[in-house]
């Protein structure tokens, strides 16, 4: 007999629509983006005005008012987000370092045929992007056959960067 006991924050399951099985990949994504770190949940919700600010600056749809972010013990933040693929919701994670730059993204759940977005080389394109530097139309290479997910994840990362800059990151000089 083997067993493992886990306590899963209900906020993750309910609002992210992540099932318990998928949460296991969430933990893995956390460790891939920030190896050996501990994560303390720092979820918050945005109001209408804040939502408008994000839309104004990022130019993208805001899917949910609930921002799922964890503070990382070794520095930085871990965001869990969902965007619409063609037939499914794509759950993905963005790591942001202390300076506000993307350290990487990990895709958590994908229907098999859209799996191209999990390609390491494709995800690597996001590394180093900052608020203001992620261009929706030229920056990220499309992958044939997955254009909807690509555009949405790109928009999502842009939205996360803007949200981070407006409401989470320490005030800069």
């Amino acid at each position, binding site marked *: *007999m*083997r*067993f*493992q*006991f*886990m*306590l*899963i*924050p*209900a906020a993750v*399951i309910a609002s992210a629509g992540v099932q*318990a*099985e998928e*949460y296991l990949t969430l933990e893995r994504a956390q460790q891939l983006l920030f190896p050996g770190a501990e994560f303390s949940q720092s979820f918050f919700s945005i109001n209408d005005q804040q939502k408008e600010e994000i839309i104004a600056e990022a130019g993208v749809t805001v899917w949910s008012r609930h921002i799922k972010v964890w503070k990382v013990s070794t520095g930085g933040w871990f965001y869990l987000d969902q965007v619409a693929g063609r037939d499914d919701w794509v759950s993905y994670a963005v790591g942001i370092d202390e300076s506000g730059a993307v350290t990487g993204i990990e895709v958590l759940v994908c229907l098999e045929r859209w799996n191209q977005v999990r390609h390491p080389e494709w995800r690597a394109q996001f590394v180093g992007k900052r608020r203001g530097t992620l261009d929706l139309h030229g920056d990220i290479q499309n992958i044939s056959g997955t254009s909807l997910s690509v555009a949405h994840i790109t928009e999502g990362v842009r939205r996360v960067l803007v949200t981070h800059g407006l409401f989470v990151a320490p005030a800069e000089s």
Partner: protein
Amino acid sequence: MSEDAAQNAINAGFETIEKIHKLMSFHEAESDLTALNTTAHQRPVSVHAYTYAVLESALAFARDSKGVFDPTVGYDLVKAGVLPRPNSMQEPDTSACWRDVELLPERYVRFHKPLWIDLGGIAKGFAVDKAVESLAAPPEVQLCVNAGGDLRVSGPAAELVRLDARIGDAEIPVLKIENGSIASSSGYARGGQAEPQQAAAHLHGVRRTAVGERSFVSVLAEDCLSADALTKIVLALGLQADAFLWRCGATALLHNARDGWRTLGLGND
């Protein structure tokens, strides 16, 4: 395994569970349990092999736990409003305990005093174990039998089980288990954790008072009957159940508001 073979096996599993329920029900007039509770203090009563096996296990747990687990709490459960009062049965002797149950050869059972046995949860655990046995699945087949929360898993993969702890919404306890059994119990009143004054479902076998009214426990063991018996022992003994769980090769996840989640027994690092 072919679809037909799987379906036949599954039907056999359900039949087994149904049969065990009929034999060991406290309320059914035709059950072995009713025959015992009505007559066994007057003369030995013959029971089905399944009933005899469950009684053997129940008495072994009673002996090993020095009576903390005691299947003769039927009368106390009726008085507490947890079980319905049986019709036309002699009132039990309130000093009766597990030592007054004698198992005789040829599947006969005798009581030395009038008493009421309740096989409650452990009959369900036994039913799950027997169902798994009757399914006779080859080792590469993934199997999960779940009877109202008493659950047994076998096969190459792990199952994820959400524990119905009802302790608030902030965190959801989930157990990942491979090749084992889980049984869960709480002493919460029917209405939930908020009303501890109402009848609780679990009694300390010696003191005959309610236990675990603010606790929830899940026990992991090799077989479901043991997991179930152990839930009652853990609710009664709390953290003191650690050594007992070790000896049984079992683990318990115990929760209460004061201490949060604690792991007891095997696998407790």
